[in-house]
């Protein structure tokens, strides 16, 4: 088993009106983790703590198998983070920004930068502050990729981005993952990104991780079952998430358990259908 790229243990941070954690998270190579949750659930705060922009109250963070001291920032060279950090340089043009930032990284890939700037049709002589929201997102995205990082922490990278560029970003992220040694943590509200990019899903609710699973487990365990009749025993069952009478049907997060009960009770199942990720996430995010 390869070592984790990121390991978070018992992380907490308390603000006046919000507490993050205690929170555990592990990111292994070749895995894209989708971080989902309602607005204000703590996704951006988590990223800022990871990137050492905000200091945690308690807990341990290991990047690349190692806990780093405050003045040893080598790990940062291998992490690509997008989360509105470029705002601090908004008076610079994109070229000036590149000249500044590329100097921090020995591994900066000038060709890659030129290619991506062209690919996303960025006007490099424009001041960052003058760019639209979507263009800023694209520029941030380009900057996260050009120093050849091993781990990407992306905070809603496609918010406000046009459709064609969104597709390109998805392609670029897949290309990034192609060698099987890298990983991405992707905070997103977009179901297509979860469907097309993510392997694991972590649900954040009010600063706590409420669910964490492999995406395919959803298909194996969640289902909508149409039955001859919905009886009390079934409605009361802890694995029944929702029921309807017309026509009789239930939604469950443990299809095998429900099937065996129904067999025992001699209820006839007329139909079973897998749930989409979207439906399941709505249950998970909403009904907490």
């Amino acid at each position, binding site marked *: 088993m390869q070592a984790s790229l990121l390991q978070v243990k018992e992380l907490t941070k308390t603000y006046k009106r919000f507490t993050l954690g205690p929170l555990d998270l592990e990111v292994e190579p070749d895995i894209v983790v989708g971080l989902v949750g309602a607005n204000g659930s703590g996704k951006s705060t988590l990223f800022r703590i990871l990137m050492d922009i905000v200091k945690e109250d308690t807990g341990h963070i290991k990047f690349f198998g190692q806990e780093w001291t405050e003045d040893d920032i080598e790990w940062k060279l291998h992490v690509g983070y997008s989360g509105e950090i470029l705002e601090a340089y908004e008076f610079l043009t994109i070229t000036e920004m590149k000249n500044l930032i590329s100097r921090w990284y020995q591994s900066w890939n000038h060709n890659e930068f030129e290619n991506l700037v062209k690919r996303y049709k960025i006007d490099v002589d424009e001041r960052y502050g003058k760019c639209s929201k979507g263009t800023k997102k694209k520029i941030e995205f380009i900057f996260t990729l050009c120093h050849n990082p091993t781990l990407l922490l992306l905070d809603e990278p496609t918010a406000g981005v046009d459709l064609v560029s969104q597709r390109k970003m*998805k392609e670029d992220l*897949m290309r990034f993952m192609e060698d099987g040694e890298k990983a991405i943590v992707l905070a997103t509200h977009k179901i297509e990104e979860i469907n097309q990019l993510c*392997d*694991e899903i972590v649900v954040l609710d009010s600063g706590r991780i409420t669910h964490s699973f*492999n*995406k*395919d487990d959803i298909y194996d365990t969640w289902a909508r079952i149409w039955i001859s009749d919905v009886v009390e025993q079934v409605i009361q069952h802890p694995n029944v998430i929702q029921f309807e009478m017309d026509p009789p049907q239930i939604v469950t997060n443990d299809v095998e358990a429900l099937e065996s009960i129904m067999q025992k009770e001699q209820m006839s199942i007329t139909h079973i259908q897998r749930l989409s990720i979207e439906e399941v996430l709505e249950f998970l995010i909403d009904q907490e």
Partner: protein
Amino acid sequence: MKIPIHISEESREPIYHQVETQIKTLIVSGQLPPGTSLPSIRALAGDLGCSVITTRRAYQNLEANGFIKTAQGKGTFVNDVENRKIEDTKEKLAYDAFKKAVEHGIQVGCSEEEINTIFNNIMREYFKNGG
């Protein structure tokens, strides 16, 4: 590069198995001839909406059974499959499909006799001359 694979929402068959069976079918039916390059496990996972864990498992099984081969850095390709293996696989795929059809018939309440009649009618439809 896209290949025509579809995950069923109705089937309880594990996704990796569905993917494996469908790629096998495409190979033995000649739709994916030897040497055809296949999408990477991540691209396929993206198309199907599943995780790379699932597509990797499908590819590993296909590779272990000699249907595909992976060349480091070049990608994954359809292998030259022996004739005997193609015949065996065809038989197995057809057998499984019949089995599923019969299960379906039983599920909707057909009797043995009714299923037999349906089967014979279909056979006549497809093999009018001779058989």
